[in-house]
């Protein structure tokens, strides 16, 4: 396989995963802004959402007011925002066009029709309930692509690169979502959170599609400690950090089998794994949640650099 093909497959999956996560974040930001009681609270939620996506500075350069209209335009349609849904879908399709021969027709068609449908949306008509519908649509785009991939893609090196891209991106996103509100997750003496806390926790869980499954796992009301545990250390939670790195490790093992040897990606992934496996929330809180997440994001990034190096991305 061409190094460029591997690279394109890797980024294609990353962009689709990112589009989904941007839609999730925006949905949460939108919801919070609707229910915020305090004056200026709506804008605060939207800004912290922009910060989690690391596009807050770009946003401020273009817009003075962080209201729903500006933020949703920026997150959905803005061509200059590299993480906007538009940019992600376009980048995914451009990558897909470059490696069309490496994709199944189901995968290609899911991306192509997603882009065509998106391009036909009038940005002015995406307010209120239409906005929520559009965000749900973005999630289904990602699910359609992933479904096509999982059910039609040959389990070879191309599959492996697409999976590493997918889960590096997912781990990165989950870590950022946690970091955005890490301070409300810190253990405090008052174990029962106030209304505001509960609202914030719901936000975090929702952004990870985890607010309902949480109950099945913990049989308990929302608690900061559990929420952090759920999204960091729970292997059955498909958006948790440990789940993502587990998937990356298995995929790297698969590549090892196909290519007959380990690459630098293994070592980089092992470092990330060491941060999670056998770790506990006690120790993570003792270390400092914010510091832990910052370190995680940086080490997770190194996986990308390592596999780009070993498998001739250019």
């Amino acid at each position, binding site marked *: 396989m061409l190094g460029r093909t591997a690279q394109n497959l890797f980024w294609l999956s990353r962009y689709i995963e990112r589009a989904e996560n941007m839609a999730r974040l925006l949905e949460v930001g939108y919801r919070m802004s609707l229910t915020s009681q305090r004056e200026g609270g709506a804008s605060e939620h939207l800004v912290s959402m922009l910060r989690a996506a690391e596009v807050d500075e770009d946003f401020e350069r273009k817009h003075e007011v962080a209201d729903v209209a500006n933020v949703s335009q920026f997150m959905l349609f803005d061509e200059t925002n590299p993480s906007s849904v538009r940019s992600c879908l376009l980048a995914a399709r451009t990558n897909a*066009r470059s490696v069309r021969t490496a994709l199944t027709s189901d995968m290609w068609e899911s991306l*192509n029709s997603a882009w065509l449908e998106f391009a036909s949306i009038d940005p002015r008509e995406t307010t209120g309930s239409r906005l929520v519908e559009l965000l749900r649509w973005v999630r289904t785009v990602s699910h359609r692509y992933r479904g096509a991939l999982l059910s039609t893609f040959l389990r070879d090196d191309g599959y492996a690169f697409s999976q590493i891209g997918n889960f590096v991106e997912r781990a990165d996103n989950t870590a950022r979502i946690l970091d955005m509100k890490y301070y409300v997750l810190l253990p405090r003496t008052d174990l029962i959170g106030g209304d505001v806390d509960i609202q914030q926790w719901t936000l975090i869980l929702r952004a990870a599609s985890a607010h309902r499954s949480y109950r099945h796992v913990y049989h308990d009301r929302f608690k900061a400690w559990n929420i952090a545990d759920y999204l960091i250390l729970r292997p059955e939670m498909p958006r948790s950090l440990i789940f993502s790195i587990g998937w990356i490790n298995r995929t790297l093992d698969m590549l090892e089998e196909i290519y007959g040897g380990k690459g630098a990606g293994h070592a980089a992934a092992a470092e990330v794994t060491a941060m999670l496996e056998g770790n506990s929330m006690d120790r993570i809180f003792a270390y400092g949640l914010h510091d832990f997440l910052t370190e995680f994001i940086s080490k997770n990034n190194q996986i990308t650099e390592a596999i780009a190096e070993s498998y*001739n991305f250019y």
Partner: protein
Amino acid sequence: MPYYVALEFMPGPSAFDEMTNADGSVREPYRVLEQWLKEQKPQALGLMAADAEGIFRRLGITFAVYGSNEGTEKLIPFDIIPRIISAIEWRKLSKGIEQRVRALNAFLHDIYHRQEILKAGRVPEKLILNNSAFCPEMMGLDPARGIYSHIIGVDLVRVSPDEWYVLEDNLRTPSGVSYMLEDREAMLQLAPDLFQRTKVAPVETYPENLRRTLESVAPRGASGSPTLAVLTPGIYNSAYFEHSFLADQMGAELCEGQDLFVENGKVYMRTTTGPRRVDVIYRRIDDDYLDPLTFKPDSMLGVPGLFDAYRAGNVTLVNAPGTGIADDKAVYTYVPEIIEFYLGEKALLSNVPTYNCTKPDERAYVLEHIAELVVKEVHGSGGYGMLVGPTSTREQHELFRNKIIERPDNYIVQPTLALSTCPTYVDAGIAPRHVDLRPYVLVGDQIRITPGGLTRVALKEGSLVVNSSQGGGTKDTWVLED
């Protein structure tokens, strides 16, 4: 009267209609189609046309129009009514095509070796050696099996039941074959019952035959199953869809220039596990951009050192550089001579009579009769920079008169042919529209001609310009089996 009346239409008086004779009777090859059309409710065809558009859009079968502001990708219109050629008609045509590609490959070999045809004075030396399509770097080089042009498209037009003319030969990088294949796919999806009523020769063998052709011209010393690559300029090229489609169908790697490199005179691709040797490159980038070390030094699309690897016989380029000298519009007029010279046979397919504007008497005729004639730029393609006299304004006539006076060698001029028409689905129902035909020929261990080819149709009423860049569409093309 047949379908035309039902749909309120009669073919124009001047052109030969491939379905309906002047007396209203239906020509033999179209009988099944006519019956089928009669059985369709008018709305059914409209639905089929809409379905067809959906199919093509979803598959992303697009092309780019240069200079268009409406985004870079467009859908090429597909007409749901097939164009039909009988087995007998096809046998005659394919013999003529085979003769032509044999002679043109012999011509290329001669031009890049002893130049006997120039010495014999049958083709003017100046026309070849001063031609920008002549590639001096190819002199004395011996490509595998002596073949220069492996993939050829011959553009044909028909003016009567028995008269076909060659409009031009495409020996560089003919495009459109993916449309031939996808048109058949779409037609099979849209009207499966039509295929059950008659026997249509398959076109689906093309990718396999292309693979065989490429393998058969691998350099000596390549392994039993040579590594094939399709070299594309990238996703912004107008024919990118076709490049990826063919690579996929053949199981070849789709490469851009940056994916290949040359070391010690051998070509490699950069793979996830390191360099891998490449034996045959089906290149879809122009000669000038192939290798910045030999041709255009500022080319970002090519592969530095590729031509040296080719010259050393370590890789085969398909088609060879320099084949443009055989499809140059000025050389075109000599093709009947070329066939006689190398094969000792009369040309089976006629050229369109062509005026040479450098000859004073012919130029005088052209300038006087420009309103009846077609003027083409010698190096133009894609329908750009041409004049169709009868459908142009006085100002345009005057413009081209001046162009010809200024540079008589830059233009060839032909009579306006009454291109045949075929029934075509349009907003108002079914109407005749002018068509041409591009059959695809593969030259390797044998000559393989896919039955049929790409029919291009001028969708505008009365228009004779079939290029997709000028509002042309395509049709599935059937060759009936006996």
